[in-house]
């Protein structure tokens, strides 16, 4: 089932087109990455999905229901973790989560249970009674997430949830995104950090100037620009016969041997590094270093648009 269906979505601010005839589908159980430079139209799209902005034209469906016609249904099934923190600094963590969950209609013991569950999930149970103004940036972010998930939405949208936080909190958040996904949530994750998107997303759309310019798994996206990876292996003493044997390994296209450095061009889609290394070791070669140059999403973006993600 499609959790989110966007057809021909357009948003104009005056003459400026922020989102330009965008169509995309997010299926159940995905972590869908929304990758694009600042100002590419990611947040505008998300604000339209969460009914904060009215589209100039186009259609948005959540769980097959139009969000303008059934806005209550859409809101109950949607959790938003906004880019700018949306928490009350002078209410305790518990009160914050409880307040937002209450907005979704949770009451009584259910409200209490869900609030505790959400705090537990983001690892803030022991800080439930503390005020967020004493929290670190990462903890505030986590509390922000707890507020969005307490009502157990089917679809959670996280808009740049890792901006400006320490690596530890960042890892915590990435792990909790995965856990949420495993517990049955579909997640849309926007970021301009290519590494994060590459790490956790099952499918990715690259957005630029309000348009989706490429879409697919990270392997598919990488293969849009090239399907060759470049492996460079340095060994202690190369055997002259190495090249011939290596060529027999699936995926390997060419092997170049320059003294103690072996360079291999191989199909990017085939995972054959292990076999290559094993072959070399079996031939009695001692491996000193391995370098694998594979196009990453940053290079995909750069090649397709001619610009860096972080311009």
């Amino acid at each position, binding site marked *: 089932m499609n959790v989110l269906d966007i057809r021909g979505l357009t948003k104009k601010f005056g003459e400026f087109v922020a989102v330009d005839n965008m169509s995309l589908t997010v299926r159940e159980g995905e972590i869908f990455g929304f990758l694009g430079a600042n100002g590419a139209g990611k947040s505008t799209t998300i604000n339209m999905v969460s009914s904060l902005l009215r589209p100039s034209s186009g259609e948005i469906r959540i769980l097959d229901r139009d969000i303008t016609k059934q806005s209550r249904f859409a809101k109950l099934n949607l959790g938003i973790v906004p880019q700018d923190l949306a928490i009350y600094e002078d209410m305790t963590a518990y009160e914050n989560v409880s307040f937002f969950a209450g907005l979704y209609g949770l009451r009584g013991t259910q409200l209490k249970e869900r609030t505790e569950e959400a705090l537990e999930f983001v690892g803030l149970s022991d800080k439930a009674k503390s005020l967020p103004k004493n929290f670190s940036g990462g903890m505030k972010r986590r509390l922000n997430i707890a507020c969005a998930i307490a009502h157990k939405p089917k679809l959670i949208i996280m808009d740049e949830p890792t901006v400006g936080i320490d690596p530890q909190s960042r890892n915590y958040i990435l792990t909790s995104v995965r856990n949420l996904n495993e517990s049955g949530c579909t997640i849309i994750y926007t970021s301009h950090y290519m590494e994060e998107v590459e790490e956790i997303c099952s499918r990715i759309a690259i957005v630029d100037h309000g348009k989706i310019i490429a879409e697919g798994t990270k392997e598919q996206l990488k293969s849009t620009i090239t399907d060759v990876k470049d492996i460079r292996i340095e060994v202690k003493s190369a055997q002259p016969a190495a090249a011939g044997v290596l060529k027999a390994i699936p995926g390997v296209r060419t092997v170049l041997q320059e003294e103690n450095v072996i360079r291999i061009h191989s199909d990017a889609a085939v995972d054959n590094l292990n076999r290559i290394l094993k072959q070399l070791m079996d031939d009695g070669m001692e491996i000193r270093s391995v370098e694998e140059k594979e196009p990453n999403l940053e290079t995909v973006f750069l090649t397709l648009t001619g*610009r860096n993600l972080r311009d």
Partner: protein
Amino acid sequence: MELWTVGNKTILLLFVVIATYFTAAQPDPWIVLLFLIYSALNLMLHIVKGSRLKQGAIVLIELFLIGCAVYHPFFTLLLPFGCYELATFYPRKNGVVLLVILIPLIFLRDSMMVLYMFVAALSYFNYVLVRQYMGRIVRQEDENELIRKDMHRLARSLNENRDFARASEYMVKLEERSRLTQQIHDGIGHAMTGALIQMEATKRLLHSDPHTAESLLQNAIGISKEAIEEIRVTLKNNKPPVEQLGLSRLKTAVEAFSGKTGMMTSVVHDGNMEIITPLQWKIIYENVTEALTNSAKYSGATSAHVEIRVLNRFIKAVVSDNGQGSSKIVKGLGLIGMEERTASVNGTVIADGSQGFTVTTLIPYGRE
């Protein structure tokens, strides 16, 4: 418009005729005569040519009606219509017309006044609406005419483009053919002649000096072998590359642009150009020329760079300039046209104004 006036007038006239017939105690031959004169005058109105004469005729009819009205009040009902007819010659004077047709009210009494008001108001309303719609239709017809002309012009330029493509294709073929002829003449022709001479000599020496004959024959065989090899090489080298037409046409256009505008231009390409289909070339060509034209018009740039790259799944065509760029891009007709063209092959166009102005056309293509 005319048909509408005649129809309305006829209905009104019939109404007046019937009304007078029922109100009169006994048939009055004078009234019949006046009706006939009225009809005759109206016929005259349609016979005379020229707006002056027509206006004169209408004024005459109106005066006649006023005369008749003195004899029988029902004739006043026919008055408003003449006013409208007269008004068609003076557009934008609806208010004046309304005032003029209200004048007879002063002279009318009771039920006649009500009837007159009813008829005048109804036909005034009719007249204003019809005038409006007629105006709209005329404007739309003008527009249609413009569009038709535009289409004609575009079709012609399309044909010219096609002719140009065909002509340049033909030129390339001719050049190719002449080169081929030259090569065959210079290389293979000479070799074959050499071999032939040696074989002739062999024939003569065959009996008198078999030994020399054999070596000569061996020579001839050697030359023939070389010639065959040369044919193979020549043919291989001359197989025309498919992509050359598209790329060279693009380069020619970019150079022509550079000559016309004085902007520095460069064209680079990378990857396997052969996979680009003629349709894709056409879209790339049109987008590139359009983007260059925009650069020259708006950017104030001094140089523009064109890049065609064939990636693994995408064909990318980029036009970038060193002009002022634009932080908020407002899509004009040119950009929308590019988008539509490119969308027809499932591609996208990205316009970016952050560093100079860059228009990138991305067209996906299938491998496998």
